[in-house]
């Protein structure tokens, strides 16, 4: 019985840690920042926007007619919004876009729940899809709903 228990525990260790080693990886949006902003920027360009330079590499700027905007990807739990708002939000309206939806306040629960779902996708060995919260500071000439439709991290 003792032998069976020890063999069982060794097997459980090998299977569980082996699966984690093969599948589980940290889900860190900070590492994907360039890709996320790059994809969103491409979508804006496809819709007639022209990219403008930014002093902050984590923030992209774009202009189309009388609509101009600054955009960055922020953590759903917060902590990064105030700096963006302070640096880029002056005289502009600040909104959030997540999963093609528009928010006046940064959504918290929904992105965290989606992030957990992405972790569960890893159970099936599938690559998690980055779904960041975008923070936007835009001029009055922008159509927010149209921007929400355009901007997404997916290709």
């Amino acid at each position, binding site marked *: 019985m003792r032998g069976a*228990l020890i063999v069982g525990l060794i097997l*459980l260790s090998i299977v*569980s*840690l082996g*699966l984690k080693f093969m599948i589980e990886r940290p889900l860190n949006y900070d590492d994907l920042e360039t890709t996320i902003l790059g994809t969103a920027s491409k979508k804006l360009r496809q819709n007639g926007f022209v990219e403008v330079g930014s002093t902050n590499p984590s923030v992209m700027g774009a202009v189309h007619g009388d609509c101009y905007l600054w955009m960055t990807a922020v953590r759903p739990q917060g902590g*990064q*919004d*105030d700096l963006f708002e302070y640096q880029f939000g002056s005289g502009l309206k600040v909104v959030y876009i997540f999963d093609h939806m528009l928010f006046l306040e*940064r959504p918290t629960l929904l992105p965290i729940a989606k992030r957990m779902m992405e972790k569960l996708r*890893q159970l099936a060995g599938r690559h998690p899809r980055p779904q960041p919260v975008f923070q936007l500071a835009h001029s009055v000439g922008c159509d927010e709903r149209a921007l929400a439709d355009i901007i997404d991290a997916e290709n």
Partner: protein
Amino acid sequence: MSEATFSAEDRTISRGFALSLFLLVGIANAEFLNFYKSIETSGLFDAFMRTFDVSVIQIFGLYLSLRFLKDSMLPPFSTLDIVVLGFAGLLFIAPVSGLAWTALTLVPTYVLIFGRADDYGRRGMVLMMAVAYTSLWSKLIFKYFLDYILVFDTAIISTLTGTSRYGNLIFAADGRTTLEVLEGCSSFSNISIAVLAWIIARTYYGTHGVRRGLVFICISAAAVVAINTARIAVIALDPRLYELAHGTVGATIANFATTIAVTYISLVGARR
């Protein structure tokens, strides 16, 4: 066969020991992501020196929990016990470390609610639950209230240093530097460690009294906040000290001071 043994014959193993080995497998799975991230970021040697970014108080809590369980006298496993342990085993196998922490919360909750352990077993399970709480659940709660916590942190630092602030931004005394207080800089992220240290000391010494517990947890928490606030306040007053105070040296000193402070306060409180 004695009541505490897992099997008969000459080579026996206690149920407490068997359960502690099972939970050890769970701990290895629960800490997998921490270990992976730590080694990936710093290399094996540095990660080892940094205890894989796991607090020594948490490591000690886990060690003590397994020791108590090993020495505990558990009743024979019932069918429901086997079902619960089987489910926990499935959660260990799932390649998401958070689910292993969930299992390490579930098993102690079950054992404590259904009274499936003696005094040692209960102590071990309380400790396991406390470590699981600080490792998973308190982080989730912290994340949800992060906005408010960071603003509160910033308010304390700016009030103490006489600097101005905006949200979680502090405008340093040199008039040119802006500090952004983030998750890792928050004084409140380590308060759960103060609670854990108290639970460990209380469980070890068998101390009783809720009021006394609250008093010493508050003292510990105040020490944690004071140490980290002092560290960030130094940067706010002189941003040239950023690398020193915020880099490896400052972080190591702050972590060491925090560990010593909460350990000392908890031991003093529990031993009196």
